[in-house]
């Protein structure tokens, strides 16, 4: 066997990432060369990239963890499953955003290139097994997102949001790096696997270790948008163009889940007693602040931003259980959340036309009279967000609740359901606006047929997976079980 083929084998697990990188570069060049009438090329090529990456990932599904690139990179069932969902989510985002971006003159190569770079960052995060790759992926994602938020140059709100996002994001990255360096000092390794082995039998350097864990958890909480590190979330969600909000609110959550589980669940697994208490506080505060603050919002994007905060709190419930059952539940939760988030931000996109946003609550008034079908889909999404069966949101809540009851934290489950009761109020309010009120705007809603089909599939999936949750649940449990 020649040296070249050995090195190629080393790169094989990262084939999807390499493919995406090559394609992004191609799109960047092609888009620079064509004139405005051929902008759709970038759109089509982006979708082709996603399909190709999905093919490469699905074709090489791993049954057990494989380390590659000298321990920097891992290919395991968890990363395969999450990547497939990432492609799907990003593809749906691109389709939903098409008309919205065209109307605002943002339908350009930059958007697609940034989206794909963000995707590449997320893929690296999902497959990282080393602090360096984790950080690399995170920064690639974050920098792409900052730029995406600022893409609408003449909007002062968007620019302000981007600035805020950037400054706070940089601060969080700094904290994360600082925490990582402390842990490195204690364990002498940046690779998650070696770290776990080094910490297995305890360490004499407890104080620096706990210190590092605190900073890491704070940094993670920043990225997740968990209270008290949530300040940027409402402003960024509100200020960014809705297509960007849709992007930020969906796929990166999946990557963030992987990020947290890799660091806490794989690297710092033995320190579960240390980080569990921190996550309990973060989770309770997130559910409380997210749900209560959402009630006061009149802007739907802002409301959904607070709702995101509370959902991240719920997801943390699964992670803090520190068991395979808990990680599997959290994974189920985050995938379901991405699905619901796509649908509800997508709906805001669809209803905004002619350059006007439709992100105020009043814009949803009487939707049932204007378009019963869209109203019905939004109804399903809202009840799912509220966790009312038979929609899938219920099973997501059930899964994380049972994982906290399993570790004996019944009080935490009680607190969680009480906050979700508060949350039900504002989701119900959307349903009320759509069904009980009369519209003040009766212009018919026009949507491209392909977007309509995908939106319908998105809304109905919430119901269908709710009636038959087993397949998705089994995928999550299997992915976690085979990767840990």
């Amino acid at each position: 066997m020649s040296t070249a083929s050995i090195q190629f084998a080393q790169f094989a697990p990262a084939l999807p990432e390499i493919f995406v990188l090559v394609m992004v570069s191609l799109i960047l060049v092609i888009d620079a060369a064509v004139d405005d009438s051929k902008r759709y090329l970038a759109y089509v090529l982006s979708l082709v990239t996603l399909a190709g990456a999905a093919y490469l990932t699905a074709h090489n599904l791993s049954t057990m963890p494989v380390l590659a690139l000298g321990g920097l990179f891992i290919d395991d069932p968890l990363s395969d499953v999450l990547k497939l969902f990432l492609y799907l989510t990003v593809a749906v985002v691109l389709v939903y955003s098409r008309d919205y971006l065209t109307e605002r003159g943002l339908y350009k190569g930059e958007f697609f290139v940034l989206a794909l770079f963000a995707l590449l960052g997320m893929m690296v995060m999902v497959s990282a097994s080393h602090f360096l790759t984790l950080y690399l992926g995170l920064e690639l994602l974050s920098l792409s997102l900052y730029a995406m938020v600022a893409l609408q140059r003449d909007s002062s709100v968007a620019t302000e949001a981007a600035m805020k996002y950037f400054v706070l994001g940089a601060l969080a990255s700094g904290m994360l790096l600082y925490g990582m360096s402390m842990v490195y000092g204690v364990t002498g390794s940046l690779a998650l696997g070696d770290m776990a082995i080094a910490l297995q039998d305890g360490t004499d350097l407890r104080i620096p270790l706990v210190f590092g864990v605190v900073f890491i958890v704070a940094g993670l909480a920043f990225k997740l948008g968990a209270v008290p590190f949530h300040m940027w979330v409402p402003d960024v969600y509100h200020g960014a163009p809705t297509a960007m909000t849709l992007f930020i609110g969906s796929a990166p959550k999946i990557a963030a889940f992987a990020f947290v589980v890799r660091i806490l669940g794989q690297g710092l697994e033995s320190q579960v007693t240390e980080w569990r208490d921190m996550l309990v506080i973060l989770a309770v505060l997130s559910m409380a602040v997210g749900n209560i603050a959402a009630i006061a919002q009149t802007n739907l994007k802002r409301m959904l931003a607070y709702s995101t905060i509370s959902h991240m709190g719920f997801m943390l419930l699964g992670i803090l259980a520190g068991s395979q059952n808990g990680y599997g539940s959290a994974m189920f939760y985050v995938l379901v959340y991405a699905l619901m988030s796509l649908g509800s931000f997508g709906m805001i996109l669809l209803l905004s036309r002619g350059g006007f946003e439709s992100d105020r609550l009043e814009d949803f008034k009487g939707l049932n009279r204007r378009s019963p079908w869209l109203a019905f889909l939004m109804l399903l999404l809202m009840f799912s967000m509220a966790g009312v069966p038979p929609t899938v949101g219920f099973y997501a809540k059930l899964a994380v609740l049972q994982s906290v009851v399993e570790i004996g934290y019944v009080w935490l489950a009680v607190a969680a359901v009480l906050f979700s009761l508060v949350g039900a109020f504002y989701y119900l309010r959307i349903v009320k606006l759509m069904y009980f009120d009369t519209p003040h705007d009766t212009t018919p809603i026009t949507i491209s047929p392909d977007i309509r089909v995908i939106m319908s599939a998105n809304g109905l999936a919430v119901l269908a997976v709710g009636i038959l949750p087993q397949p998705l649940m089994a995928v999550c449990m299997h992915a976690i079980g085979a990767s840990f």
Partner: protein
Amino acid sequence: MFGQSILSLVIWVPILAGVAVLATGSDRNAALARWVALAGALLGLIVALPLVSDFNTATSSMQFVEKAAWIPAFNVHYHLGVDGISMPLILLNSFITVLVVIAGWQVIQDKVAQYMAAFLIMSGLINGVFAALDGILFYVFFEGMLIPLYLIVGVWGGPNRVYAAFKFFLYTLLGSLLMLVSMIYLYFQSGGSFDIQTWHATALGMTAQTLMFFAFLLAFGVKVPMWPVHTWLPDAHVEAPTGGSVVLAAITLKVGAYGFLRFILPILPDASHEFAWFVIMLSLIAVAYIGLVALVQADMKKLIAYSSIAHMGFVTLGFFMFNPMGVEGGLVQMISHGFVSAALFLCIGVMYDRLHSRQIKDYGGLVNRMPVFAAFFMLFAMANAGLPATSGFVGEFMVIMAAVKVNFWFAFVAATTLIFGAAYTLWMYKRVVFGSVTNPHVEDMHDVNAREILLLGVLAVCVLAMGLYPRPFTDVMHVSVVDLLAHVAQSKLP
């Protein structure tokens, strides 16, 4: 052909019929929507009939059982089955659904398809509640039925419908979420099972039983509703359209009472005995105090709503007497109340459609204009007051008899309902129907039409039949009730 899946049909036929009704689309096809809905409701009733004809009254074990893996990850099964307690309730629900569809025939002119579909889907979900033998399956149906009911109250309700819909939804959600946590706790205590019958056999310590008792009590007490968590009911009743009020009173309240027999008593027998005094006290307050509250209502729907709370107080009182007479009396009272309250709300609907008022003071002298209606209304008012030979008498009498055996004073307070019930019902009847016509609009009111006669007539037959010969009902329940009580008598403390 479908011999093995009767319960599935009973659940899914109405739901699929509801989807079919939705598919008829906008109000241009309203007539089609109505006929499809009626066909669906009738089909739903027909597929439920084998439950009666093939029912074995000699056994207390579950019948028509269906079991299939649903979510193996959590050991959740699609597990259905009925016994003598749940079977009559499924039948009652399927029957009332037909009436509700007919009752909304002309009254509802706006978004007909959505209205009919909401009722059919809810009917299927409620059947699911009564048939489910798996905790999560039960919870899915139990919560799922809130969605159509929320829409029914909010879209087709009265002026204050939004407030009522929110109050109703959040109130019931509060109770059920705590129940969900209890169920998850039971899942781990029973070694990883959501099967209700497994839970019946799971040993539990007193602290756990006590906490879960109050969680379940809140969940089902809100639904029943018991004093003091009853305040959503008058609001929801008043604001709901006629069909919504009928379903609320006749069916959804029974879901709460059913929960007592399926969950609280058999799963938490020690806590049930320990805190029986608490439930009895709340029930007696409901019977006596709410009876007085009903007396001063100016709105007919509100009056009947309060009367429902008082009557449901009898049901919970009967359950916590822990003797067959009391439990069966409570069950009979549930069915009877299903007929009587449905009939009374339909009567109010008949008047409301003509005068667009529910205020007692706007009426008077109705008998001059609507003699046939007055006769029907009389029968149902008497049944509500518990007159012998009507169904209302049987249940109340049985519960009072059971209470006498336990404690004379329980029976004494409970029996005041015979006075208060007669007072508020008959006083309302007198003010609405008798006397001379004072409101000129009453002069223009025409008597009931054939559709309304059909509705009220069918219910009148039910009320009288059950009052004269309640035996078939008690026969169906008896074995299941005796077995349940034998189970409840055994301590589950480890």
